[in-house]
């Protein structure tokens, strides 16, 4: 299955772009200056040879902020995606595998959470953890814990079809313990779906984190830069001062990076879908 993946043009292009952005974040933030350092002599300057992307209203180097922001946003995305995948596997996997009451409870729980509008709920919850002053880890955990329902649905339907297969029955009849069946028989077959779920959760988390930070409810902007904190133009957050709208160099690049990343993940995901989903397979 994974050798088919390499032959998918969509997957290769998407992955290449995603990896480029990851390297841009990691290596770029090593080479540039401190993204939080202010410089009153160069406040709100348009792009120049010294500051490639210009400076912020306090004279921060925006290129350095962009690199660090990309890295931090991806870090939060990966953490939150991991959390969401974990919850989805637990809720969407164990329930249907055990069947009976467990299945009903997990299914009802998923459908109840699914009806909740996610963003308003996140805005409320992020105020509890002290949005705007919280650590990146907390924000990631919060995003992960609210974005799992659709992923649980995906995994549930997979587990339900896997459960009926012959080799699982054989394993059960030969006296294998449940835990061993899950690890040696079900997991290897689920791996592809779990990867897909993780990748999509990651991109949702990156998008959500930027939105939360933008309205001042994300991680603490005075210690971490993310792509969202760079977009603090609306000044709706209590700690933020709105930047003037004429500073196009400050908000175009972070949004562009976000867009390119999300589009690349989407293309990568549809490439994976074509390979893993036999009904769509064309390679």
């Amino acid at each position, binding site marked *: 299955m994974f050798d088919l993946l390499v032959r998918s043009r969509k997957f290769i292009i998407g992955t290449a772009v995603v990896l480029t952005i990851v390297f841009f974040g990691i290596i770029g933030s090593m080479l540039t200056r401190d993204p939080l350092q202010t410089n009153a002599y160069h406040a709100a300057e348009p792009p120049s040879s010294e500051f490639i992307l210009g400076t912020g209203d306090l004279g921060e180097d925006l290129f350095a902020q962009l690199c660090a922001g990309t890295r931090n946003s991806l870090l939060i995305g990966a953490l939150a995606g991991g959390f969401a995948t974990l919850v989805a596997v637990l809720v969407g996997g164990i329930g249907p595998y055990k069947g009976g*009451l467990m299945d*009903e409870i997990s*299914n*009802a729980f998923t*459908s*109840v959470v*699914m*009806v*909740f*509008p*996610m*963003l*308003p*709920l*996140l*805005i*409320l*919850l992020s*105020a*509890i953890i*002290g949005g705007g002053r919280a650590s990146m880890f907390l924000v990631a955990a919060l995003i992960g814990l609210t974005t799992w329902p*659709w992923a649980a649905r995906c995994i549930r339907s997979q587990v339900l079809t896997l459960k009926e297969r012959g080799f699982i029955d054989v394993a059960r009849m030969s006296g294998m313990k449940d835990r061993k069946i899950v690890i040696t028989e079900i997991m290897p077959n689920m791996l592809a779906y779990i990867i897909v779920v993780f990748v999509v959760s990651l991109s949702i988390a990156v*998008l959500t984190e*930027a*939105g939360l930070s*933008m*309205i001042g*409810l994300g991680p603490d902007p005075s210690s971490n830069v993310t792509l969202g904190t760079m*977009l603090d*133009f*609306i000044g*709706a*957050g*209590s700690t933020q001062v709105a930047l003037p*709208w*004429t500073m*196009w160099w400050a*908000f*175009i690049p*972070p*949004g562009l990076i*976000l*867009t390119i990343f*999300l*589009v690349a*993940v*989407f*293309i990568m995901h549809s490439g994976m879908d074509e390979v893993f989903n036999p*009904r*769509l397979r064309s390679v």
Partner: protein
Amino acid sequence: MKRIFAHPFFRSVYKKVTHPFFKFIFKKAIFYLIVAFIALTFIFLIPRLMPGNPIDQMIPPGTTDVGRLRLRAELSAYFGLNKTLPEQYIDFWSHLLKGNLGLGMMRQYNFMPVAKVVMEKLPYTIALVVPVLFIGFFIGNWIGARAAYTKGKLSEAGYFTSIFVSQMPFYWFAMVLLFLLAVNFKIFPTHGTFSPRFIPGLDLTSFLDAGRHYVLPFLTLLIITTGGWASGMRSMTLYELDSGYILYGRQLGFRNKKLLSYAKRNAILPQFTGLNINLNNLIGMTMIIEMVFQWNGLGLLALQAVQARDYFMILGTFLVTMVVVIIGNFLVDIAYAFLDPRIRTGRGG
């Protein structure tokens, strides 16, 4: 879920409902009532778990220590916050069932009835959400079905555009539109619902003034949702065009137009189930877009209430949001039941 419906009480009601269409609606209604109960409990609990206290923010800064203590005690008693949490929870339900949402505690709406403030803001949010939901659904699906049918360079360009538009962060797109159309070319105003120092009334001039402010938030939401529908519909139609009944129809010599109409009808069903999730996303998106454009709706009010830790205003805004979402979901389910012949006629499936 099944166990709840197996309860003797439900079975006695359920037995009398014989038509599967009404059975379906009955089940959904019970489900949404449970969801509403859980949601309201959440909205009651979450503000009270937040750090910070709305009472402290209401006391004027120059008050002496003794006055501060007395004021705090009196205000807590006035808002019923000196009781224990279970007592407050019972109060909350008894007031809610009477339609009383309490009084505002934040500076802008001090001691104003929350229900009145929220009802004033609700039309502005509905004016954004409902047209965007329907117009986006129709235009997006129309474009998507067209894109599936056209071939060659144009199709690929359209496909890529729709992906690009649907994956773009909506708040950033709002900023770009604002920068281009409001700041650079000054076609539309940058923020607000009415021009500054304009006194709105129920006449044509205030309607036109609000209309000019309405265009940008509306366009932002519409373009983003249309992109999502279009890319979804394209892949669904392509999938249907590949299936057996279309190939059979083609061999029988049906015209392409006829075949496409068959494919479209099957492709639109999954899109309809997506309407639920899209509505939930749209409500969240509208909240943030309202903040970007300072549009005077529920979303802006909700954020201000969260920042001021105003328990009753948070309750009011999120309650109305949840109720809108739940009613919307219920309506979509009913519409789906009408569309799906298996549920409508009660045969097959």
